[in-house]
């Protein structure tokens, strides 16, 4: 068994970006099925046009409409593509110098095998029928010399001023060994902390390094599921994925015997009645729903005991 608990995690976000005049001109061109280059200070034409000249650092302002044919100046064979690449089966990336341009453009070439591509090979764009104004609107294919009769034109396409780039990354996320023992304890209905060997503080969840002393917490301490609210906030704002209807309370609960508070929900009491010092007890879900998760505890609810004195938790805020 791995010493740590692990689970898949996907982190994803759709980035919306404004293009500015140079990239906007280039991407508008792609939407129109036209490749647009930019003239550099030394007279060379670059595709894609950089916003600023790489040598003079002046803004690039002169644009050149180019044909959609070019020459492969370098290539590689992607034997094991990764998610998001232009093809799910093996394909080629190439540096392609568009006719009339002086600098190469990185793009994909759709060929069946590495034997079908070579340096110096002529290629032309194969345009998507529906184009959004993105570099994914085309891939390159070998140019057989005939004019591309299927080349679409859309000279009136609306100007591209922003793009949305979805980014999604998959991880195998591991808890630290100390956190893993905490989650394994929860699967048995126990709350396990660990004591720092130096400062003697009890951390829950335990940590790979005590943030005060820089040493791993070691001695295991089983904690009560009763504690004191040290601080809290009332959640009034709705957000994506919210499971409880606002307003509700998210609080720091200092479990009896712990030195660090645990964050959890306070329910079974109107939000406006929650207060610092309030005594609360964990409400566990039915045992058959337990996993290695803090969600085994549904929430905390008032015990009805008198509030704790401020002095009992003032060093734990």
């Amino acid at each position, binding site marked *: 068994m*791995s010493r740590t608990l692990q689970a898949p995690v996907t982190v994803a976000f759709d980035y919306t970006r404004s293009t500015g005049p140079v990239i906007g001109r280039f991407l508008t061109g792609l939407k129109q099925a036209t490749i647009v280059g930019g003239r550099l200070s030394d007279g060379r034409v670059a595709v894609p046009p950089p916003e600023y000249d790489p040598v003079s650092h002046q803004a690039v302002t002169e644009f050149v409409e180019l044909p959609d044919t070019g020459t492969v100046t370098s290539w590689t064979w992607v034997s094991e593509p990764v998610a998001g690449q232009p093809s799910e089966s093996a394909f080629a990336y190439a540096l392609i110098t568009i006719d009339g341009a002086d600098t190469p453009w990185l793009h994909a070439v759709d060929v069946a095998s590495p034997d079908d591509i070579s340096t110096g090979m002529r290629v032309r764009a194969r345009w998507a029928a529906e184009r959004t104004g993105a570099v994914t609107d085309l891939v390159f294919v070998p140019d057989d010399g005939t004019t591309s009769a299927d080349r679409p034109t859309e000279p009136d396409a609306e100007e591209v001023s922003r793009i949305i780039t979805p980014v999604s990354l998959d991880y195998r996320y591991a808890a630290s060994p100390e956190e893993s023992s905490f989650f394994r304890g929860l699967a048995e209905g126990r709350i396990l902390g660990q004591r720092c060997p130096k400062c003697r503080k009890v951390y829950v969840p335990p940590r790979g*390094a005590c943030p005060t002393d820089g040493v791993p917490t070691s001695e295991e301490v089983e904690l009560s599921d009763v504690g004191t609210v040290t601080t809290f906030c009332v959640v009034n704002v709705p957000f994506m994925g919210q499971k409880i209807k606002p307003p509700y309370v998210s609080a720091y609960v200092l479990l009896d015997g712990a030195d660090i508070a645990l964050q959890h929900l306070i329910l079974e009491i109107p939000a406006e009645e929650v207060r610092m010092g309030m005594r609360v007890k964990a409400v566990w879900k039915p045992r058959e729903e337990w996993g290695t998760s803090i969600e085994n505890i549904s929430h905390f609810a008032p015990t009805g005991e008198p509030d704790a004195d401020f002095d009992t938790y003032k060093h734990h805020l």
Partner: protein
Amino acid sequence: MRDVAVVGFAQRQMKDFDGSPSMAELLVPILGECYEQTGWQKKDIGFWCSGSSDYLAGRSFSFVSAIDAIGVLPPVNESHVEMDAAWALYEAWLKIQTGEVDTALVFGFGKASAGVLRRTLALQLDPYTMTPLWPDTVCLAALQARLGLDAGLWDENALAEVVNRSLTDAEKNEYAVRAGGSSVEELLARPMFADPLRKHDCAPVTDGAAAIVLAAGDRAREANQRPAWISGIAHSSDGLHLGTRDLTTSGSAERAAAAVGGTDGVQIAELHAPFSHQELVLRSALGLGEDVRLNPSGGALAANPMFSAGAIRIGEAAKKIWDGTADKVLGHATSGPALQQNLVCVMEGR
């Protein structure tokens, strides 16, 4: 300028780290080794700087969790770069130059195995014209390698020779995750991965962390009998647009080497070349002749933990000063696609 030296170095490199991506539990023993080497404690360190990335960890603020390994009460003077720890070292060197502190500890860490590294690294590219195509780092390096092959600047044998020497040297490195030399013929008989590169031409995905201790003047002499004095350190970057760079050379590496006054007299160089042909590009750009011993540690082809492999090159080079093997060494770090950013650190024994 103040005389600043590398006086401590510790590392861990492995294929799969069975632990959290903030790696605090791995950093604790690494920092412990640095204390042992220098005879210092936490309170002796004037400045801390780390290098890491949340894109690798898959969580936000992973570097904040990592500084738990320092133990930050009372608070410490601390900074972070989203670059290899070699650049954290540069920041620390500058901090010492200001006179504000006399000592610094820099560290880098990364658990590349948590995701698909070559894909994650597509996010360092131009987000408008490149990232939507998800060009992975290995393919970009392969395009660079073919440019040199086609231009006759190197051939397949030269790449295999780099690999064979690196993996042979790696046999003596306890932290190598790939080791074992064979022969040029045997290497060239292996299948292509990203034509014209084979898997052994590409650094292995590696988890790891490393730390380096810097100190000025007498503090350095107090911590190490033969400190590796930094006689020159500089870094430079090439532009964002791949197409406007000449990928068969490295302008930024040339500029960094010029900024440290050249590399004459360097006996041993540890180059951070994650792909075999990049060692050839760097050797030429840094002006290192045939008499310079390259990567006795096995280099990045043996282990390449993101965010610490560059710092490890500086640490490995410094060790050759400490043990008297050499009087002048060079450590190099790279970052970005196809050698876009380069840092050079020349160290001398006195």
